């Protein structure tokens, strides 16, 4: 049933080390290594370009002669983002929102998944089905919008927190992981007189830190990168100013910039367009770097997580 065993370590070791090759390295291996190098470049070059642009002078950006190496080195753009209230507030708000959402989501995911691993839980199957059905049939954009309208949640931060706070997919991953913890541990704790809550806190949670880290990453990335809910549920200008996550702000800034750039092109470009471009690039860096700093450390865990999810889902 679950591909990954109790702690998930065995499997990703296998995944990472691949087939153990007993033969010596051949030319074919070098060719494959070279292809992989090219693939890595394809993934990295766009990000390097953004980094280089954000560190370049505005006029070089306007002249489009920045590719992978910054020209006219300066960190003005970063300083500007950090002193522009609009960007700074949005970044801070997105960070706060991400923390709130992640903590809430992970707590609720554990609450949803843990009881379902009890084989004799009455109604457990019905509850699982209740959760699972929503993966295959959802109400749709407009009904969800109307719900928030009825709950008076539009234009409030709640609209960005609650509607997506539990993902069934992640509940499945969590449940599969908890299934992998040997029953004997639980039974031993129960014989010692521990109730289900105590068993959860003292037996399951310490063992499931890897999966908690993985799912936290998934939820955090989802919220940090999320943009469509803010686009749909924040309608009036005051709410947009206050609660726009960084992605929505970036989207709007870029849309406006393209419009003004079109105008500027008509009226002979000046450097202000270039300045706004470096700022955009710096904002992009701010919006991606937090995640890029975290995910490599969690790689061995999320690989296992994705595998369980795909097998079960």
């Amino acid at each position, binding site marked *: 049933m679950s591909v990954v065993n109790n702690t998930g370590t065995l*499997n990703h070791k296998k995944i*990472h080390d*691949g*087939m*153990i*090759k007993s033969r010596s390295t051949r030319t074919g*291996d070098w060719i*494959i*290594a070279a292809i*992989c190098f090219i*693939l*890595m470049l394809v*993934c990295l070059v766009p990000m390097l*370009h953004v980094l280089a642009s954000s560190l370049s002078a505005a006029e070089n950006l306007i002249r*489009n002669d920045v*590719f992978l190496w910054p020209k006219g080195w300066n960190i003005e753009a970063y300083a500007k983002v950090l002193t522009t209230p609009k960007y700074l507030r949005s970044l801070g708000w997105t960070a706060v929102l991400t923390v709130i959402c992640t903590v809430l989501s992970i707590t*609720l995911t554990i*609450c949803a998944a*843990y*009881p379902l691993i*009890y084989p004799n*839980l*009455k109604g457990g199957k*019905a*509850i699982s089905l*209740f*959760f699972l059905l*929503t993966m*295959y049939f*959802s*109400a*749709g*954009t*407009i*009904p*969800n*919008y*109307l*719900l928030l309208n009825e709950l008076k949640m539009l234009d409030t931060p709640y609209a960005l927190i609650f509607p997506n706070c*539990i993902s069934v997919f992640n509940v499945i991953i969590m449940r599969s992981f908890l299934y992998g913890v040997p029953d004997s541990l639980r039974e031993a704790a129960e014989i010692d007189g521990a109730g*289900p809550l105590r068993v959860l806190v003292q037996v399951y949670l310490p063992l499931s830190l890897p999966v908690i880290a993985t799912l936290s990453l998934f939820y955090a990335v989802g919220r*940090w*990168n999320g*943009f*469509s809910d803010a686009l*749909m549920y924040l309608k009036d200008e005051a709410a947009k100013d206050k609660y726009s996550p960084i992605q929505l702000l*970036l*989207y709007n800034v870029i849309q406006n910039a*393209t419009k003004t750039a079109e105008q500027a092109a008509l009226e002979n470009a000046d450097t202000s367009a270039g300045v706004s471009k470096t700022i*955009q690039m710096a904002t*992009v860096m701010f919006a*991606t770097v937090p*995640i*890029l700093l975290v*995910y490599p450390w969690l*790689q061995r865990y999320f690989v296992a997580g*994705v*595998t369980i999810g*795909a097998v079960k*889902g």
Partner: protein
Amino acid sequence: MVIIRALSDAFSWLSAPVSDAWQSAEPLLYVGFLAFLLIVGIWVWNQKGTGARILSGAVFTLLAGEAYRLVPRIVASVTPKSPLPDATGYAGLVSYLTMGGVLLFLELYRQQRYGRTETGKGLRRENLIPVLFGLMVAVSFVRFNGWMDGEASVFWVAVRNLLLAAMGVLEIVLWLPASREERCFRHLPAAIALILVFYLPYALLEMQVPELSVLMIPRTAALIWLVWMLRGSAVLRGTGYSFKTYIKRYWTLYLLLLVPIAFFAIFRYYPMSYISLAFKQNNILMHPWKLPLAEEGGLEWFMNAFKDNAFGRALFNTVFLNLLDLCIGMPMPIIMALLLNELAFPKYKRLTQTVLYLPHFLSWVIISHIALRLFGTNDGIINKLFNTTVPYMSENNHWRIMYIVLGIWKECGWNTIIYLAALTGINAELYEAAEVDGAGRLQKIWHVTLPGIRSTIIVLLIMNLGRILGSEFDRPYTLANKMVNQVSTTISIFVYERGLQGNQYSLSTAVGLFQSIVCVIFLVASNTLAKKFGERGIW
């Protein structure tokens, strides 16, 4: 007559207008009651104890009868002008027969559990029950019952209810020994008595004192009690500990589940009630249940959508882009996984994987921004490097290709994870055997590796086929621009623009419903197909 008048006065407060809250809560209560019966019925049916099937028969009879009575009322209470004919007459007949049927099943269950009593000659008491039920059925067909025309003769009403009362009293007497013997049945006669006490006055006097229908509420409560006891009787045999001990030990689990269940009920299931807006007039000031039907018998918005060229184009774009994704985007991770699998240097492999996973963590807003920088027609880096002016992002077919390419760029590395996991499951001996047979690298891939991940590929293919009409929002929305909106508007964007920006809520709900239904159909169909070909499928 005086008594009836007095009764009528006593209950007159009931006909006072009920509050709005009750009006919207009533259907939910009914739905809950019917769902309760359905769940208990199925659950009892699956029990292995004696007579479980008979018991579930009793519950299902009740379910059918109550559903017949309640469903028209649910429909009537949620639609201002109920399209259904007034079914109260039939409902009286059905609930009369339902009561008799339940008592009959109860007797059959008793006989199954305790055997027939041996004493007595000739007509034994327990044989009276089927006879009485036969009489009830016969009497109910007499014209003077007035089921249809409401002109009941007092005599026949009294006769038919006397038959029911006799059956009930007899059943109470028959159950008395069992109720003393087994704990789970100790309240059963009381429950039957309560049901009769609440039901009979209503059945006798419903024509004269309509307000008495309030008695159906305690009657239903007593029915729930009865069904719960029967359910208990099916459990208690065999299992070691009682329901009380179970709850004492595990109530915290239900406490944990409370918030998630509430979340799914409110944010996933409750919005489904808004789907009815697809059949109603375009108005979001009140719940669509209370709105009148749209024109064309409620199908106005579906017809409008299918007549609308813009919708046709959105449908085509969705399917076309998804098909391209399926044909071009799906094989890529497989190829990449094979490549990574062949990579001989473990540390370098780990680094490659880390880098390939990077784009997955970027949002579409950022990717579209970078794409514009790199692929802009006049100021894009790529065009500048090669000194060309290819309209990558602003010409229809170029845009389609870029849509696919960027999708591959973002998710290809990430999607290798699942294939790589499947690859580790392949038995290493197979490779050794192939090597002994003199197979080269490509031959090993073709004959060992690919067959080894075949089932994974099929499962992912099913999931992708199931999503053929599904559409992401972020990806086309952020990549789109004015020049290409003929090919970039997918259904999700159509719904957003028409519904949330254009206030055509009913139309977009209809489109969304169509999309959801087709998605489910595709998923089920492709899963069935996969199972036909001997694959595992996704459920």
